[in-house]
């Protein structure tokens, strides 16, 4: 094998000028790109399946751009009333907006139009879903820590813009379902204190539904939001390249390096191939699964509604809270404050997004950790962080389910009202329970790691000693595994401070300091710290001794042949 391969260490060996070489020279003569290219062509990316979740979002976005351009060729963003005369028999002669009529045209008269509509819609769902799972991966592994906080913030903004982009797109066909969605959005806007009606009248150009909302949303959907998304995705990727990707700890993988495969050719093939796979899966879904069958909903009519009126999944959480809110509406000095609308629909998303967006800074403030981190943590290594997100996921998930309470009721033959009552309690109790359970679970896993490190792993081999005692044989784990487990920071649990100096005079920031110290204590106090070298050696010495004691006995099997972790080729399994 060649010795060490590091980036850019292999000399260029182009001897005769090739056509590609000539083209490259032509370009470089004009833009001088070789300097940047040499650093990046063989840039190293670590390989792990969870690092590709963000890629699903990226490629979905590309698919959205491609399929979206196709749709714009036929879609007419107009609310002018037309009489339908297309192929869909059930609506011929019906009055409808041009937007809806052109959506029907794309669906029924343009070959591949319905496929593209469905690809576009599925890709939109996947785009946001992939951003969510990518966010969770980054969160649970601590990849948002310094120096990547800004990229986390950009990612949160991308999520917000993605959801807005999804909602505006959902509204464009002007069918009954999307019109109902807009009607609800109108009700939400009107619930805002003081400015509510103005917001609504300005957005809709007068009273709902007006005749301008579709063209306005169209401009936002195909120009403003995609532009912002593109710019932020660009920044997101540039920061990724600049910071270099995080990696899991392991033998040879440290805070100072990144180990993996080069951009060219392995990552180009893998990432490029993944684009085709994402596109392929989306196309197959578009071929087989009917999404948003607008022809069944009918044109929007403010006096019509359908059972199962739901937004797309990413709006499900605030839909859920809107459904389970008690009827809080107050009169204040002659003015009406519909809190049962404003809180869940306007305030909740802002609060949730802010909590997520500013989380890295909150955690940093609590832990006081200002160092750079490039090695990922396993969820168990930060029990409070993990538990916090699990609690948030529980909250979100319950609201999500509540947003589909009528579907749950009808599919599982449940009582609609009882689901609602249950959810009202569960969204408060569930996250608390989830936090406690996840936190304890993570700490238990830490203990399990410690156990493996100090006493070895359980072989599953039960030994009976001469005096009749049964014990399970433990064997030491491999050096690589042991190193991986110990490749984490040793945390120091700070003492609780009173915030006072020796004379009992409180510091000006005493309250803040006390709060922070208490949080910090809670953050670290129950964690299991990795052993010191001396502790580890003592434990290993002890284990070695045990094995030696038993080595002389008749049943010398230490169990390693039976635990499936070792290559036993050529080994004699039993002596007798």
């Amino acid at each position, binding site marked *: 094998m060649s010795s060490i*391969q*590091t*980036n850019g260490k292999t000399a260029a060996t182009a001897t005769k000028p090739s056509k590609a070489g000539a083209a490259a020279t032509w370009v470089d003569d004009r833009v001088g790109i070789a300097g940047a290219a040499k650093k990046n062509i*063989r840039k*190293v990316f670590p390989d792990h399946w969870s690092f590709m979740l963000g890629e699903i979002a990226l490629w979905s976005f590309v698919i959205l751009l491609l399929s979206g351009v196709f749709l714009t060729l036929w879609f007419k963003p107009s609310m002018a009333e037309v009489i339908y005369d297309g192929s869909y*028999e059930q609506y011929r002669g019906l*009055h409808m907006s041009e937007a809806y009529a052109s959506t029907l045209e794309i669906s*029924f008269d343009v*070959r*591949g*139009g*319905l496929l593209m509509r*469905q690809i576009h819609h599925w890709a939109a769902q996947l785009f946001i879903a992939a951003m969510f799972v990518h966010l969770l991966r980054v969160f649970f592994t601590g990849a948002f820590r310094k120096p990547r906080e800004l990229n986390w913030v950009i990612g949160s903004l991308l999520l917000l813009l993605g959801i807005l982009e999804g909602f505006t797109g959902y509204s464009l066909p002007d069918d009954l379902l999307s019109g109902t969605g807009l009607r609800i959005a*109108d*009700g939400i806007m009107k*619930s805002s204190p003081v400015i*509510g*009606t103005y917001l*609504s009248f300005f957005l*809709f150009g*007068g009273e*709902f539904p007006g005749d301008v909302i579709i063209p306005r949303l169209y401009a936002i959907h195909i120009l403003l939001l995609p532009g912002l998304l593109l710019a932020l995705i660009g920044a997101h990727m540039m920061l990724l390249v600049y910071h270099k990707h995080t990696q899991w700890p392991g*033998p*040879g*993988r*440290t805070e100072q390096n*990144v180990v993996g495969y080069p951009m060219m050719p392995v990552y180009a*093939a*893998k990432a490029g*191939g993944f684009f*085709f*796979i994402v596109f*392929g899966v989306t*196309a*197959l879904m578009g*071929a*087989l699964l009917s999404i948003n069958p607008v022809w069944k909903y009918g044109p929007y009519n*403010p*006096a019509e*509604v359908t*059972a199962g*009126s739901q937004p797309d999944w990413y709006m499900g959480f605030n839909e859920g809270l*809107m459904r*389970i809110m008690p*009827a*809080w509406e107050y*009169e204040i000095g002659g*003015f*009406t*404050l*519909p809190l*049962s*609308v404003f809180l869940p629909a306007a305030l909740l998303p802002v609060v949730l997004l802010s909590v997520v967006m500013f989380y890295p800074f909150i955690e940093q403030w609590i832990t006081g950790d200002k160092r750079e981190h*490039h090695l990922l943590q396993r969820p168990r290594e930060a029990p409070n962080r993990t538990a916090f997100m699990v609690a948030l996921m529980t909250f979100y998930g319950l609201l999500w389910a509540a947003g589909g309470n009528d579907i749950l009721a009808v599919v599982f033959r449940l009582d609609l*009202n009882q689901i609602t009552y249950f959810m009202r309690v569960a969204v408060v109790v569930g996250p608390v329970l989830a936090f406690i359970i996840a936190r304890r679970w993570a700490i238990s896993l830490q203990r399990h790691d410690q156990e493996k*490190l100090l006493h070895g792993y359980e072989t599953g081999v039960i030994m009976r000693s001469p005096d009749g005692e049964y014990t399970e044989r433990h064997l030491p784990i491999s050096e690589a595994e042991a190193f991986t487990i*110990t490749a984490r920071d*040793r945390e120091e649990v700070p003492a609780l401070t009173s915030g006072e100096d020796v004379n009992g005079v409180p510091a000006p920031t005493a309250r803040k300091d006390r709060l922070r110290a208490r949080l910090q204590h809670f953050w670290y106090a129950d964690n299991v710290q990795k*052993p010191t*070298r001396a502790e580890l050696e003592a434990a290993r010495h002890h284990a070695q001794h045990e094995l030696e004691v038993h080595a002389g006995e008749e049943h010398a099997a230490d169990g390693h042949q039976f635990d499936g972790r070792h290559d036993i080729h050529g080994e004699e399994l039993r002596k007798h």
Partner: protein
Amino acid sequence: MTHNPDQPALPGNEDAVNDPHAPVPAEPIDNPGLPAHHWRPTDVDPAAEKRAERQVATLFGIASLMSILFVVAYFAFEVGEDPDTFLGLGASTLFLGLTLGTALLLIGIGAIQWARKLMSDVEMVEHRHPAASSDEDRASAVAALRQGADDSGIARRPLIRNSLLGALALLGLPAIVGLRDLGPAPGNALAHTVWRKGMRIVNDVSGTPIRPEEVEIGQLVNAEPSVFFDADENGEPIMDGHEVLVEKTKAAVILVRMQPRDITPLEERANWGVDGILCYSKICTHVGCPISLWEQQSHHLLCPCHQSTFDLADNGKVIFGPAGHALPQLPMGVDDEGYLIALSDFEEPVGPSYWERGE
């Protein structure tokens, strides 16, 4: 990078070697360095390599075939009025999607298989650098910035600075005011509907007027004001399509008939119904969905959007769900010809609550 011949030359262990500040004793286990590389069958067995090569090429080949089949499907299957079907599904969409999807998927799988089986899988190591610039770079940048600021004289000429800041701040005004014509001010538009005294209540869609005796106990009629269906003397509709939509958003109503003994009207509403027929706004007071899930036995009206439930036998009171106030009721009577009519407009704004609603 220089290698110390005394130190292990394992890739990935360089920092342990080169970093003099590494707190080695605190770490319980030394970094063993990257494990030795293992070759894949395709690296060492030419037959396996050939097989993998053929496999990838086959995938690409089938992908090409699929693209051609896409074109065939495009021209072979009808869309439009008489679409071709296959197993009850639209054939064009189905086959276009299947061929396109398979082509894309196979290209993707082929490329990745190529990378996995045939491209070098020797791991490479790249060094990280702190995200921050070096101290010198930082100092020069700050110096340059300061130089630039000094050259501009922005600190020495507060008059220019402040007038510029003022000018820029005031640019916000055109930006905001320029959007004023996005829509009219709300005024009291939301407080009124097209309902007037004497306007007939007609069946939605057909526009036929309704006599009380036509409505049975337990009946639901989704109704509208007759003005949406009326024509002027020239036979032209009084309201055009777009206007109708706006007004319908507020004026849609439902008629229900209950046993008069079941109804407990407020005192002032005692004469708002006709023989147990009552007329309520169809627009939910929560966020404005049209509601018509009428349970004729329990007299409950459920909104399908967020499940607010109103008791129509009890003045439209909210009995479940997030709606903040009762469903507005339309005072109703009978005209000379025996048809149901409104006695006035709604006495309160219909639809979702808003800040000025109580005014």
